[in-house]
């Protein structure tokens, strides 16, 4: 069955959509009340964020827009040292979208929320003219577990830890768009368990960032600029799977600039580097964690190449498009 404009009317069809799809899967006491707003209890300081998801294709190897919408907001909260607690979800659905598709997305969101231990406590649905697309906005609240984790807080002498392989989400999405069959899976995953592990081990984490759009290069530049320091990374230490590297070589892409959806950097004091490494490694999503570089005095990001040459690493400009030749 396809969604038509009547599903956005606020009347009977909208009610059916909410009950039979969203409440069925997101099912929790707060949401089920269908009040105008969720009333929540939290303790201490909170982190609060929002993100919108417009990815095509909606389903890709390793995930879908629903999983992405939950993990994206969960990860943004986690990077501030917060324990994600509550999410809201807004759906903008184009007419012509299959109801079964929406249900599959809702199911996927529910599974991701369960894994990340967050509740989806409020939502909204709108239907617009179009061609069967779907866009999702999520916002989220998390309780701060450790303060002062900030992009401005990298210290000279710290080391930079990367939680795993680069470029997998970007390569999976591009493969989907280009109709290329391969085994590359998006790394889309909630990172709250990695963060909880680090904080439980009393690692004095100075800065965390999930490595999403713009890739590692952009994130490191943001950290260096905002913390008024330089960052040096080592090409040999960067984890990239041979399949993603091959994909990049063919298309002229650089894993340093590719998006990930389940990877993060943590900047920690050198003395705690090994302990932090072991902590991340214990998590399901941190098996390939590496120490990739260190914070130095100065500015900008530099890479020591495999040949021991030196390369400047700038932010991403424009879109990372496959090259022409």
């Amino acid at each position, binding site marked *: 069955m396809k969604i038509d404009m009547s599903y956005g009317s606020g009347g009977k069809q909208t009610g059916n959509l909410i009950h039979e799809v969203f409440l069925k899967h997101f099912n929790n006491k707060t949401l089920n009340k269908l009040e105008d707003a969720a009333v929540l209890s939290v303790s201490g300081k909170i982190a609060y964020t929002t993100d919108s998801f417009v990815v095509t294709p909606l389903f890709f190897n390793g995930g879908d827009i629903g999983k992405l919408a939950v993990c994206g907001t969960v990860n943004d909260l986690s990077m501030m040292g917060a324990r994600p607690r509550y999410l809201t979800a807004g759906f903008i659905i184009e007419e012509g979208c299959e109801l079964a598709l929406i249900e599959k997305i809702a199911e996927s969101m529910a599974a991701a929320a369960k894994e990340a231990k967050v509740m989806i406590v409020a939502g909204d649905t709108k239907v617009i003219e179009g061609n069967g697309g779907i866009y999702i906005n999520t916002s989220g609240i998390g309780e701060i577990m450790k303060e002062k984790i900030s992009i401005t807080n990298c210290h000279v002498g710290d080391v930079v830890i990367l939680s795993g392989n680069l470029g997998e989400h970007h390569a999976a999405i591009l493969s989907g768009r280009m109709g290329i069959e391969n085994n590359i899976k998006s790394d889309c995953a909630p990172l709250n368990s990695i963060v909880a592990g680090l904080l439980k081990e009393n690692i004095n984490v100075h800065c965390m960032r999930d490595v999403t759009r713009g890739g590692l290069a952009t994130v490191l530049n943001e950290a260096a600029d905002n913390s008024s320091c330089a960052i040096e990374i080592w090409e040999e230490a960067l984890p990239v799977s041979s399949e993603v590297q091959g994909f990049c070589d063919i298309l002229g892409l650089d894993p340093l600039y590719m998006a990930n959806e389940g990877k993060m950097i943590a900047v920690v004091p050198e003395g705690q580097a090994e302990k932090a490494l072991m902590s991340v490694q214990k998590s399901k999503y941190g098996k390939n964690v590496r120490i990739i570089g260190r914070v130095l005095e100065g500015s900008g990001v530099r890479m020591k190449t495999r040949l*021991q040459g030196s390369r400047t690493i700038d932010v991403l400009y424009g879109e990372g498009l496959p090259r022409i030749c």
Partner: protein
Amino acid sequence: MKTLQQVKDELRQYNGKPIKIMEVCGTHTSSIFKNGIRSLISSKIQLISGPGCPVCVTSSSYIDKLVEYSMKEKHCVLTFGDMMKVKGSKLSLTGAKAAGGRVQILYSPLSAIQLAKDDENTKYIFAAVGFETTTPIYALMLEEIISNNIKNLKLLTSVKTIIPALQFICENEKNIDAFLSPGHVSVIIGSSAYMELAEKYQKPFVIAGFEGEHILAAVYEILSQLGRHQPEVKNLYVSAVSEEGNQKASALISRFFERTDDYWRGIGLIENSALRLREEFKEYDAGSSFEYREEHMPKGCRCTDVILGRISPEECPLFQTVCTPMDAIGPCMVSTEGACGIWYKNRERR
């Protein structure tokens, strides 16, 4: 046989006469930065970029024509992403799209066939830009168009060939000592394509792959050739490049395309430097023109000097001051394969 370390040591310690090596291909320029090659070799060895970015040398009137097509009712322009931001005399394709034109980015030219089949009411114009590397794919595309009897997909071509451009540079730019020949193009045209140039102009033409080690080996080979005054063609990319090249691909190209004179943006007319569709395939051509039209180069832009290896991008007064990838003035700043864009992204930040 030298070890990598010995090669690196010798290149770092080189203290002979200053030499200028032109890397023809944008992918080499990119790899030189990615591997930090300049930091590994003596400052007496200067690596300069050449004309090997197809987007950079495509004439502004060609882009104007694409823009015009995108605005026409029931027309849609299909292009590689790279072409989107290069300005014609007024607009780029990105600008045309924002102004209501229909432009679609393709990752593979062959997906144009499906688009044309799915929507017969739209006339699709494919922006066929490139060098010898992309041309065989356009030839395959034409085969598909013909065998599927597709009437609503045509090519607007701007396909260049590299040897005449190198000849032009050898003839007019005397200060270049050697050439790092392009890897991908050489796969198609073969190492023998450079023989005549090497002999006539007495310059080394060394073909290399794209890994850092490949480039170091090529620079080392060039130094050795210059040292013993024996410039020649040397193929160091034997895993992919043969002496004759890919003859199947070359045959496919000559079945559909023939040589013609063409204008290179920023350079001017170069004889026999382009490929156009043969007369019998004219019905698949969307009106590609090889006639001279006034070339639009932005005021103050020194892309011409960059392409011809006269200056490095940093020596252009617009570089980084008003010309950046976010707001590109010249074509070399726009493309991912363009010298200025690559230099900008890898520049030392102050």
